[in-house]
């Protein structure tokens, strides 16, 4: 197997949970996370602003055979559709990679971790924090 390059960052321009973070701040958070976790950070790709577009994420998933994994700025950048998310987890783990979310300090490196990630996303979908 060819040597893998590191962890690709993933940022975006769409608001998350109704709030926004400037892209350079997202990159700072990812870079800091990578430094603390001793991961080699590769320059982030920025997802399209159009709602429902995950074309840039798909490019990163296609790149996984050459990566150790990816670092999302936030777990809430994953698609809203659960089946599509599960396809993403499958692809990441099948390629021997891991998935990180910098803001939430989440690491998904095995199938056992999937439900914990899904619990966060589902509770966030239905519960409102006042």
């Amino acid at each position: 197997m060819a040597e893998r390059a590191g962890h690709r960052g993933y940022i975006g321009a769409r608001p998350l949970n109704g709030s926004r973070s400037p892209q350079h701040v997202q990159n700072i958070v990812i870079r800091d996370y990578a430094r603390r976790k001793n991961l080699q950070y590769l320059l982030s790709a920025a997802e399209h602003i159009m709602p429902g577009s995950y074309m840039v994420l798909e490019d990163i998933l296609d790149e996984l055979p050459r990566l150790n994994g990816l670092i999302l700025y936030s777990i809430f950048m994953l698609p809203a559709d659960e089946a599509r998310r599960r396809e993403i987890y499958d692809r990441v783990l099948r390629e021997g990679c891991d998935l990180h979310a910098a803001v939430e300090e989440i690491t998904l490196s095995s199938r056992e971790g999937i439900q914990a990630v899904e619990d966060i996303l589902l509770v966030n979908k239905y519960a409102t924090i006042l």
Partner: protein
Amino acid sequence: MMDTDFLQPDEQALAQRFIDDGFVTTRADDRNGLDRIQRRAAELAADYLKLPPSNDPYAMLDSIHARVSVDDLNGLRLHVFNGLNAEPWFRPTYFRLARSTIETIVGNELCMQRRVNLSIQLPGDSSSLLATHSDVWSGDSPFEVVVWVPLVDVQRTKSMYLLPPSLNGEMQDRMASLRSAEELYKTIKPHATFIEIPYGHVMLFNQTLMHGNRVNEEPGTRWSMNCRFKSIMSPYADKRFGEFFEPILLRPATRVGMQYKLPGGFHG
């Protein structure tokens, strides 16, 4: 009355080229300024690589792939990027490279991106490519333009590609049925044009058009800078005023207008 009636013939021609082709290339307005930027970039690169200063900055930059590995490329890029942006003369000089074109295409009350970007594309390197995109898709306003300046001659895959305006809308309409940005590139590939720009020239392009780059298959390393400009009073998107853009030219009438308050105290 058409606004073109108020423009000089050369301005009309430039504006029409920008509309029709999506870009214009011109000689740098300030060639000495461009040479100064190139020289400083080469000095910073030599500093990072612990090499003696070169008296041929063009050759130094164009052949940097012989002296740096892909693994160390981003370290080099950040060192030169930070060093250039730390120079107080750098951004005003960058603006002067294309001032006349910017003022014709955008206007003369302007804001400028706070940090000028730097790209280095080593021959054969796939680690830092920009997939097919429009800047607007990642949060830029459609009212912005990009001033793109190479520090070496660029042509074919050593340059960037752009989709012509006549095809951009049609391709955008097909986008949602495509899976990834790479698939999008394969769709537009027959129509994308790699823009040839000799050193000493600058390009100003419409960043709402699809563009990107591919693996550099030419023998030399590409060094290019890019920076966005927009009319200060035009709409902003996710790249906000203050955090991403800062004003560089604000005219007295606008300052007066922003400070004016109508007389108050009426109680009728």
